[in-house]
């Protein structure tokens, strides 16, 4: 055989026909049975003819269509092969006549075996039948001998084996079975005690008990989620252009939880495709809809947003159709599908389900893009509580340390001045919050009143000068988050006063806000739009909200005093704006507030939580829980703290007294900075711990009035809608219709996918599970069940599984239990001379699966065996060891340009939690065929390369695992080399060692020990790899010796395969 890819097509035909069609053909010939259209004929016609003579109207040549019986009738010769133009053309020697044309796009002629099949098909009447995958699956009849109690899977597998004169391999050993099953269903190896228990359990239901235990493991959900993450193109970065960070791990954790709870697959489907549209959707259902936000998004400065918005919709169509239908719908984006009966119009009907989402084409290189929901992060909550306690303590310390000062003369002179004639009138009554904007050590913002704590995250604030008092310059990159503080609920009056000086009258900037970052935008926001002061009070944007901004902007570069008052009426008419004491006209942009704007979002000064930062100078921020009277407006321009100073001491409330004290200690007193600095640090830490809260991007459709019409796009181009070809949501006609009348949305689509009798969803899903367990699906092209996909190796088995799955209530654990209980799954994995010769790829299922573990499980396995594994489930992604420079070489200077490995326990998390930067995913995993997850991937390749050897031999993660494993070997087994080798093999491979293993590894230990004795420095250096601490009571040379043995064992072929 030529060792070149360029002859691969023929090679392929040879291999496949050699293995499949020819033996069956021979059976057919002998029995006089005609070829089966679906199995034997359609693959030939599809592959060789449909490109020009298939479903694509626009591209059809010679008006001949071979994908329908009517279209083909004229060339089939009516049972007479000699009269068939089809046969004439495919066998012609004339280069002008022969089909496919030798110089055409197909360029592949028919083999003799294919011609023979076509001939016999023509002679038998050329019967067409609908493509198998578009017919609903039916439970096959299973004929077994009455004496046998065969599992249906085994009966169907055996039927095929018997036809091909094969038989099942003997069952795998118990050690092999438990290891295979545990790795398959949890991605982790069984422990020695689990193996021992299973081996000694001789009860008839020992295997069932094993299955129960494994399926109940929380690691089952992780394993299944990992499969799903490839399909869902899950990543921790945004892919396009800057490939910045995003947080979708909340969605990933939802998936783990759903699998562990054994959520029925129909519900699992509906929640991920349309969780947001479910009436009264829960937070979890909204999070689930994040499935279709995992795709790549761009932030590139020059893009035309619509081009990318369309790109995202196209991706959702591709992903949804690949994952649930096993069809490449995306091929019909530019023209009718070349092979499958899917027209371009039908493509855009499907597309329109996804064409009304709110997310834009231009997204972000830094975090999540709306719409999104916030998710609680229990870990972060704990951290935040601790940080808040620290803040309170620091503040208490500050006050405690300040007590002597507050009793001193400096304070009393300041807080109760004698020059009463200088007192300025100020509406002290009803103040609930005041930020004096005193620069204090350039780290913290002084706040006052009622346990209000603020932080600026350590960003320096500059002092701004304002006649008579002080101010702060906010550079447009800083905001302060407050813990607690007042609510503005929309039905209570309030007033707000501030001094501002702005350098420009453009952009939007918030001054004081408390607003959700999800799609409701519930809360309030006081600030500027293009320099015009105004406010939002929002219950639900924008159906229930107040929005008013001034008609004119403020002056640039000059201090102005702004007051907003509100009467609590819920109406725009209840809001008034005063600038420098004058009433200004406002423009009402929304006047529909119908319910409370109270929210649990934090209070923020200087910007919104996710942007809209204020740039300019600010001073004297004051909030009253009442509507100021018109005659109080001018007085409000004065300072609250100043007013308090002149306020009679005996009339001061406790809060007012505390505000004065705090203003003094933080802003006025300069005698000792220790407590102030400690307070600043605590606030900073508190702000950082707030960042532990996370969000998830979710699906959300536009409101009715803003819906987009969907048009067929000419050649798939975003800017070429065919205005005379508007389409409504719908599904391809070859598949069952949507089950109800009326307007269809994503929820209808999701329900349609899992409606009873759907021909594809269940088949595609059970096939994928089969692929997970056996390495290949029954339909090997698990992403393509169309005409060009491979026929199932066992149609009846596939259908049995599909029907069983649906009838069980889409119960995945039930399905998996069925498969792993079977004799077919439990066979020994070894090849026989017969399988090696005739069925090396195990298409006949004459042996159990023996395949290399996927990337993640190779690392997890090493971590588990060495007891380094941190089994924590879920949470933010982590950064294990990675060679320096890998990200830096390719990245833009963004938040993800530098890789800083985590330390401690995070280095040993399961590999599925490794931070997935999709332009530069972890190199060790990629070397073992992990996909970049830039696009939906249903099948990984499984290669075998020298670079893989370098990873498991030299990657510090694996070298450290060898060190930790060696430590176990030394501590947990005997002192003789053979004891230790025996222990190592048992732990790593889950079986008893062979004598040769004991001999060879003991001998290696002997020579290595000598080597390290001669060169003790090398032992020390070897032991230094990895940060996990070493048991120093073990002599270095001994530990290094066994580290070499452990490194060898962790590279044994058997360790890497299941």
């Amino acid at each position, binding site marked *: *055989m030529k*060792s*070149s*890819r360029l002859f691969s097509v023929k*090679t392929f035909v040879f*291999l496949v026909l050699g293995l499949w069609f020819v033996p069956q053909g021979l059976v057919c010939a002998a029995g006089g049975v005609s070829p089966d259209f679906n199995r034997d004929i359609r693959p030939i016609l599809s592959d060789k003819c449909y490109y020009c003579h298939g479903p694509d109207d626009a591209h059809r040549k010679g008006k001949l269509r071979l994908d329908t019986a009517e279209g083909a009738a004229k060339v089939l010769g009516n049972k007479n092969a000699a009269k068939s133009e089809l046969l004439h053309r495919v066998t012609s020697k004339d280069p002008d006549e022969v089909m496919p044309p030798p110089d055409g796009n197909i360029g592949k002629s028919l083999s003799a075996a294919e011609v023979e099949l076509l001939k016999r098909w023509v002679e038998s009447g050329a019967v067409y039948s609908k493509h198998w995958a578009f017919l609903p699956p039916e439970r096959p009849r299973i004929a077994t001998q009455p004496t046998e109690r065969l599992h249906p899977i085994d009966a169907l597998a055996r039927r095929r084996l018997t036809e091909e004169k094969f038989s099942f391999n003997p069952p795998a050993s118990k050690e092999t079975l438990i290891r295979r099953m545990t790795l398959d269903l949890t991605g982790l190896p069984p422990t020695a005690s689990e193996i021992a228990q299973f081996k000694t359990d001789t009860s008839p239901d020992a295997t069932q008990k094993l299955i129960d235990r494994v399926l109940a493991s929380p690691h089952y959900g992780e394993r299944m989620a990992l499969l799903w993450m490839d399909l869902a193109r899950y990543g921790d970065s945004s892919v*396009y*252009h800057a490939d910045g960070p995003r947080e979708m791990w909340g969605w990933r954790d939802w998936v783990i939880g759903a699998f562990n709870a054994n959520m029925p697959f129909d519900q699992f489907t509906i929640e991920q495709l349309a969780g947001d549209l479910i009436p009264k959707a829960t937070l979890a259902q909204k999070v689930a809809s994040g499935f279709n936000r995992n795709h*790549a998004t761009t932030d*590139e400065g*020059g*893009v*035309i947003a619509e081009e990318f918005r369309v790109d995202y919709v196209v991706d959702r169509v591709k992903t949804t159709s690949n994952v649930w239908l096993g069809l*490449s719908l995306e*091929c019909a984006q530019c023209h009718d599908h*070349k092979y499958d009966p899917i027209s371009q119009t039908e493509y855009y009907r499907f597309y329109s389900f996804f064409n009304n989402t709110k997310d834009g084409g231009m997204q972000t290189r830094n975090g999540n893009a709306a719409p999104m929901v916030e998710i609680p992060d229990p870990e972060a909550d704990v951290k935040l509580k601790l940080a808040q306690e620290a803040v309170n303590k620091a503040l208490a310390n500050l006050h405690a340390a300040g007590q002597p000062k507050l009793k001193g003369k400096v304070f009393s002179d300041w807080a109760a001045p004698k020059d009463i004639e200088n007192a300025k009138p100020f509406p002290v009554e009803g103040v609930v919050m005041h930020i004096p904007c005193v620069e204090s050590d350039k780290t913290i913002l002084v706040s006052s009143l009622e346990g209000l704590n603020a932080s600026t995250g350590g960003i320096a604030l500059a002092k701004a000068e304002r006649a008579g008092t002080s101010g702060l310059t906010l550079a447009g990159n800083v905001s302060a988050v407050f813990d607690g503080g007042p609510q503005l609920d929309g039905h209570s009056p309030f007033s707000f006063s501030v001094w501002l000086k702005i350098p420009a009258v453009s952009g939007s900037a918030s001054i004081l806000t408390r607003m959700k970052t999800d799609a409701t935008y519930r809360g309030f926001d006081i600030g500027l739009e293009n320099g015009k002061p105004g406010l939002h009070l929002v219950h639900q944007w924008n159906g229930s909200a107040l929005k008013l901004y001034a008609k004119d902007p403020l002056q640039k570069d000059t201090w102005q005093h702004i007051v907003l008052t509100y009467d609590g009426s819920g109406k725009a008419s209840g809001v008034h704006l005063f600038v420098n004491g004058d009433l200004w006209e406002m423009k009402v942009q929304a006047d529909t507030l119908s319910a409370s704007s109270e929210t649990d979002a934090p209070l923020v000064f200087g910007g919104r939580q996710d942007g809209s930062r204020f740039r300019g100078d600010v001073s004297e921020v004051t909030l009253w829980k009442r509507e100021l009277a018109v005659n109080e407006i001018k007085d409000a321009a004065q300072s609250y703290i100043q007013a308090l100073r002149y306020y009679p001491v005996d009339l001061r409330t406790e809060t007012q007294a505390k505000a004065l004290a705090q203003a003094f200690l933080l802003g006025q007193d300069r005698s000792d900075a220790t407590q102030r600095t400690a307070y600043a640090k605590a606030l900073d830490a508190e702000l950082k711990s707030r960042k532990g809260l996370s969000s998830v991007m979710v699906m959300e459709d536009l409101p009715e009035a803003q819906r987009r019409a969907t048009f067929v796009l000419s050649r798939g181009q975003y800017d070429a809608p065919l205005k005379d070809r508007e389409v409504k949501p719908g599904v391809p006609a070859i598949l069952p219709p949507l089950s109800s009348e009326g307007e269809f949305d994503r929820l209808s689509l999701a329900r349609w996918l899992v409606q009873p009798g759907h021909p594809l969803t269940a088949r595609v899903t059970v096939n994928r599970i089969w692929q997970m367990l056996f*390495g290949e699906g029954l339909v090997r*092209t698990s992403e393509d069940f169309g005409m*060009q996909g491979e026929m199932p190796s066992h149609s009846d088995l596939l259908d049995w599984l599909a029907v069983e799955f649906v009838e069980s209530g889409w119960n995945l654990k039930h399905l998996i239990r069925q498969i792993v209980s079977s004799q077919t799954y439990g066979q020994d994995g*070894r*090849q026989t001379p017969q399988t*090696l*010769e005739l069925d*090396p790829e195990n298409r006949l299922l004459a042996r159990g699966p023996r395949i290399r573990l996927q990337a993640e499980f190779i690392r997890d396995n090493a971590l588990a065996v060495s007891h380094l594994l941190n089994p924590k489930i879920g949470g933010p992604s982590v950064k294990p060891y990675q*060679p*320096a*420079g890998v990200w830096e*070489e*390719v990245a833009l200077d963004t938040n993800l340009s530098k890789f800083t490995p985590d330390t401690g326990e995070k280095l040993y998390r399961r590999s599925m939690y490794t931070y997935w930067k999709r*332009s530069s995913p972890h190199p*060790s995993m990629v070397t073992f065929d992990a996909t*970049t997850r*830039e*696009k939906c991937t249903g099948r*990984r*390749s*499984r*290669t*075998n390369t*020298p*670079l893989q*050897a370098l*990873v498991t*031999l030299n*990657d*510090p993660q694996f070298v450290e695992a060898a060190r930790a494993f060696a430590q176990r070997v030394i501590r947990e087994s005997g002192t003789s080399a053979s004891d230790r080798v025996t222990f190592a093999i048992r732990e790593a491979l889950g079986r008893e060692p062979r004598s*040769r*293993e004991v001999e*060879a590894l003991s001998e290696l230990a002997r020579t290595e020990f000598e*080597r390290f004795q001669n060169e003790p*420095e*090398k032992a020390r*250096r*070897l032991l230094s790899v990895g940060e996990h601490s070493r048991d120093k009571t073990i002599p270095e040379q001994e530990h*290094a010796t066994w580290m*070499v043995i452990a490194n*060898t064992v962790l590279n*044994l*072929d058997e360790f890497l*395969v299941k």
Partner: protein
Amino acid sequence: MINRRAFISRSGTALGATALSGLLNPSLYGTAAASAGTHFAPKAKRLIYLFLAGGPSHIDTFDYKPAMRKLHGIELPESIRNGQRITGMTSGQKAFPCVAPMFEFKQYGQRGAWVNSDILPHTASMIDEMAVIKSLHTEAINHDPAITYIATGAQQPGRPSLGAWLSYGLGSENANMPAFVVMISQGRGQKQALYSRLWGSGFLPSRHQGVQFRSSGDPVLYLSNPEGLDRSTRRAQLDVLGALNADSAELSRDPETIARISQYEMAFRMQTAVPEVVDISKEPESVRNLYGPDVMKPGSFAANCLLARRMSEQGVRFVQIFHQGWDQHGSLPSKLRLQCEDIDQACAGLLKDLKQRGMLDDTLVVCGGEFGRTIYSQGALSADNHGRDHHGRCFSTWLAGGGVKPGMEYGVTDDFSYNILENPVHIRDLNATILHCMGVDHRRLTFRYQGLDQRLTGVEEARVVNALLS
């Protein structure tokens, strides 16, 4: 006895891995006479692609016209822009003043080709070896889609790169080196990101992805043994591993196990072969000098060019060098100068070095980026400063060596170097032509994925530019 067919078909892919896979041990597959597997006699046995990432200005390098001087400062006529879309970075500009290059140009070579004599003097001196395409074009107008397009044949991620296709189709000539090597150098101009998909394997088996060689740390990731673990220890380990794995193979009859034994052996050989190939200390000074003063700076474009030659010599099928920093939205006169300073002497040196070794005849060298830049200024045009925005309607790329007609220019653009007047070359055509030089018919190098026989040039029309071929 392991059945060879079993080996070949156990690839985990629809087709099976009958290609000479870059990193497989040829002793298992017979001699790696890869060229025997081409569609027709290849003119080039290997390829070196100098990729200038960011969109180098064709106007300021190879597509200059003296008449441009007269256009300086005038508004780009609507008849030239013709309603074409432009990027969001300049679409809001009120004026589009044309900018003549702020550099000197001279005519070079037998055909008197205009080349920037200020900043590309060395490259210009080799013009008679080069075929300059001035009429290359792409639909993409932004970096990510454009670079993904030219590198993989599609604007969206997911497809194999040019190098992955070559590895898949032709395999490696050297058992101890990958078939497809990638090296990256940083420029000094505005940088854009790169992505592993640009040398990724897409839906091809992942062994075909480019292997990145690095200038610091291990040249290939994880190549070195851990500290304190000697090569002799490693040898002893591999002997035990080999013997025990052979025992396993005897029991399981799994061909993959036998293959794994040989992969470990190849890894062991790579541990010496790779450091040898990247060690340029033994190169004669006369050779090093060809590449310019940066050649001794690890990770520089010049150093990578010399490494590319050494690897080509060792039978690496395809070396792709990415040089970043060509995105001159502003400060073009100064930044383009720095960028060209990085590459000028090295490009010329590479051609000279290949030529003096007789390798230029069967080594194809390609140099260019993902798109060109606009004739009009991005932002304000001052007496000595301006920027240019992205321009995909035409840009220049040069080829030299195996299979290419030397000393020619192909394609003509209008006075504004904005539209193509003659002989357009789509980036698909360029890729088809590169494959052709390597002896591969782009229509026949296919891989079945999602029902389609996928190929580098995709489903759209692509043609080999015969006029460029020698």
